[in-house]
């Protein structure tokens, strides 16, 4: 099982005519003229080269060799690179020939990495934070958003902590509101920035009708949450942040990642959410993605999901009977208590979603979240066809 390859280096390229600047390109089949100067021809057949040249495309992208008679700028992608389609957006770095796929129109799981900086340092972080100046990432997103299909149903901004440079990020959200007003925009943030009223008010002022914040709370106990996120005082700021956002009428999702530190108190955590934050819009109880720091901290984090089913069933029941919208993410149906299965969601992004051999004979596979293919997947002893 392997994730889709979303980045790589061109096998061959001729980009001299494009200058040195990195740019985002939207792919389009050369059956029509480019809609704008940032449309690149998607070459899938031999005759596409001719069409692309005839229609005056500036760039062609495909997997084949450029025919000898063509002089069009081009990128030839490595064979293992993910399947591409019309409307997808690629970032091309002319100097190095590096190519990254930033947006796939057919996917329901598009995300933009806003920054790798973060003021939490979670034990199980799948995207370990780095203290680097990566402000260029937001420039790149600003450059890419105009190329994203405005009918795209959903988009996620993730990090790092997207609100690290919160003023710039709010500007990016304003741009998203103007370009993609119908898209559900989900921001994965640790929520601590919202403890400051300025940030919560600026966020609310964006006024995107489908903007929501996904905020992790790992326990209802300060010492446990702070330990998991490796930041003293984080629990207090995060909870205050959630309260402020809701006070401003904003959508908030609470995310609880399940591992050996959080799962044993899950019943209490869910009861606490039901009692104290019943007004949040969604609670996601999430299986662990064994990648990034989770691999390093395996000894303190790993618990077979089978061993927290009682806690999970109790937590789901407490939340759902309290009228809180709850889902279970990232766990295969076979390890879940039957009472929990109706709450399970196919949550794993398509590019890193996989199934194992046991799934072949399973009647529930079509509805199942399956597994992460990233990092070093670990499997429950409960995996068996249903």
């Amino acid at each position, binding site marked *: 099982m392997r994730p889709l390859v979303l980045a790589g280096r061109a096998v061959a390229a001729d980009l001299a005519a494009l200058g040195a600047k990195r740019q985002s390109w939207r792919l389009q089949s050369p059956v029509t003229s480019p809609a704008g100067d940032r449309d690149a021809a998607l070459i899938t057949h031999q005759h596409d080269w001719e069409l692309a040249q005839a229609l005056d495309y500036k760039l062609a992208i495909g997997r084949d060799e450029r025919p000898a008679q063509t002089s069009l700028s081009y990128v030839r992608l490595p064979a293992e690179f993910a399947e591409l389609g019309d409307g997808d957006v690629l970032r091309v770095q002319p100097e190095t020939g590096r190519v990254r796929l930033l947006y796939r129109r057919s996917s329901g799981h598009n995300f933009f990495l806003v920054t790798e900086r973060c003021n939490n*340092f979670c*034990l199980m972080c799948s995207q*370990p934070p780095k203290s680097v100046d990566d402000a260029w990432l937001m420039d790149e997103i600003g450059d890419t958003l105009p190329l994203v299909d405005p009918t795209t149903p959903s988009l996620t901004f993730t990090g790092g902590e997207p609100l690290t440079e919160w003023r710039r990020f709010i500007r990016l959200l304003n741009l998203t509101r103007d370009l993609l007003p119908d898209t559900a925009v989900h921001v994965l943030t640790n929520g601590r920035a919202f403890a400051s009223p300025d940030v919560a008010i600026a966020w609310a002022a964006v006024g995107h009708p489908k903007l929501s914040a996904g905020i992790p709370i790992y326990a*209802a*106990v*300060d*010492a*446990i949450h*702070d*330990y998991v996120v*490796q930041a*003293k*005082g984080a*629990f*207090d*700021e995060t*909870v*205050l942040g959630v*309260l402020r956002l809701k006070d401003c009428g904003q959508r908030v999702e609470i995310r609880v990642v399940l591992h050996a530190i959080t799962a044993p*108190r899950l019943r*209490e955590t869910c*009861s*606490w959410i*039901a*009692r*104290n934050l*019943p007004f949040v819009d969604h609670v996601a109880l999430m299986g662990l993605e064994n990648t990034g*720091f989770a691999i*390093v*901290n395996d000894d303190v984090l790993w618990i077979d999901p089978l061993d927290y089913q009682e806690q999970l069933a109790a937590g789901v*029941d*407490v939340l759902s*009977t*309290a*009228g809180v919208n709850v889902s279970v993410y990232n766990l295969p149906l076979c390890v879940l208590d039957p009472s929990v299965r109706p709450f399970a969601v196919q949550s794993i992004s398509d590019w890193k979603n996989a199934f194992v051999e046991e799934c072949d004979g399973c009647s529930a596979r079509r509805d199942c979240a399956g597994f992460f293919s990233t990092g070093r997947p670990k499997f429950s002893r409960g995996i068996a066809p249903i």
Partner: protein
Amino acid sequence: MARFAQPDSFLPVASALRLLPVRFERLGVDRFLVGNMVGDMTEMTQAELDRLCALDLAPGDGLYERAFEKLFIASVDQSAQQQILALRLRSRLSFLRAATPLHLFVVTLRCEHSCPYCQVSRQSKDRTRYDMDQATASKALDIALSAPAPLIKLEFQGGEPLLNFELIRWIVLAAKERAAPLGKQLQFVITTNLALLNDEILEFCAEHDVLFSTSLDGPRDLHNKNRPRRGNNSYELAVAGIERIKERLGPDRVGALMTTTEASLDRVEDIVDEYLRQGLYSIFLRPLSPYGFAIKTRQFHKYRAQEWLGFWKRGLRYILDINKAGRHFPEFYSALIVRRMLSDEPIGYVDLRSPAGVGLGALVYNYDGAVFASDEARMLAEMGDRTFELGSVHEHSYRDLVLSDTLVSAIADSLTQTAPQCSSCVFEPNCGADPVYHHATQKDVLGIKPLSEFCERQMGVITHLFELLEHSPEDAAILRRWAQ
């Protein structure tokens, strides 16, 4: 390689820990119920409670975790715990924002029943004297519609209100006409024994969305014994009426209330079975109130709080087992209390809130135009005690009535938040003030709580429900569903 800090790097500084407001109550030899100011409770041993009070706890010992989750403790540099308490307290008191949603119209005091436990002191004759007239109804309606609540519930009471159905018809039509320009929503309920139900009434109620609330005390012999009527057919008429309403208006358009008398005490299963047989969707195992004929005929004094509690517990056990077998059939009183215990949404029940629900929760317009602070207040008045008479529809506006000295002092003098024994009671957040009850039984709106059967009953009910929620997972799951 990244470096990670150990759990002990995130411990609170011991000297920074502080105790937030907590209350407790002894449950048994070494068991205490400990609660916060918004009704969350947990069980502790004596040693645990001592350690909590001495702040002798730390992450990892299990007690710290429980105490933090229940908002019993916080560190001085934290503010989320207090913010949560504050916002939840605000939610729990938010019924004050939608004042006086319930308005009771006593359209007549006449009744064709002669129940010895009658709490309203019915009259049997003299139509002109005991019926409400249209002019009075019209004034009362104006007062009702000037209350701040966006949803106004009009309940028609008696006596037997169907004896003056013409007036009900007039009020419903007038209310609809007058509410529309004010943007108010309306709900109508007739509290009736159903003996006088006919097609014309059914037709009207179907057309205008009028609900029915009736009395069903249990099986035929018990019901007819409690509720005597010429022909000895109260039960037959009530049951036939329930059936006709379900058929014509739908199964959720009629609810029934039972009154517990001495004769009911050992027959709770029979009573529940009768409700199931009649296809009713819930039951309310409620005690008799100390008003009206219930006092005069000494019915009220025939059993004490503990006997009622035994009756209620036995009934609840029986009802929970029925639910376990797959039939959704809530006990209303338990559902109310569990909702108080598990959510901060204010319930519409006027007897379980502080500031008290008198006036702020409901107003009662008597047949003669006198306005009372609650249904019980007019019951008292019929016994000659007019303490809670707020004024008259002919002379006063809504503002005059709710700001009257009578109401303001009844409410201010009965706040459980500041009352001796209540202010430190672990049950207080889930309880309420009942100034009329305490005035009726103790001549004191606040009440001397150790002598109060209201208090005894509430403590018994909440403790029992707490035990079920904590120690009986299957029952807890059912109770939580009732509270939804």
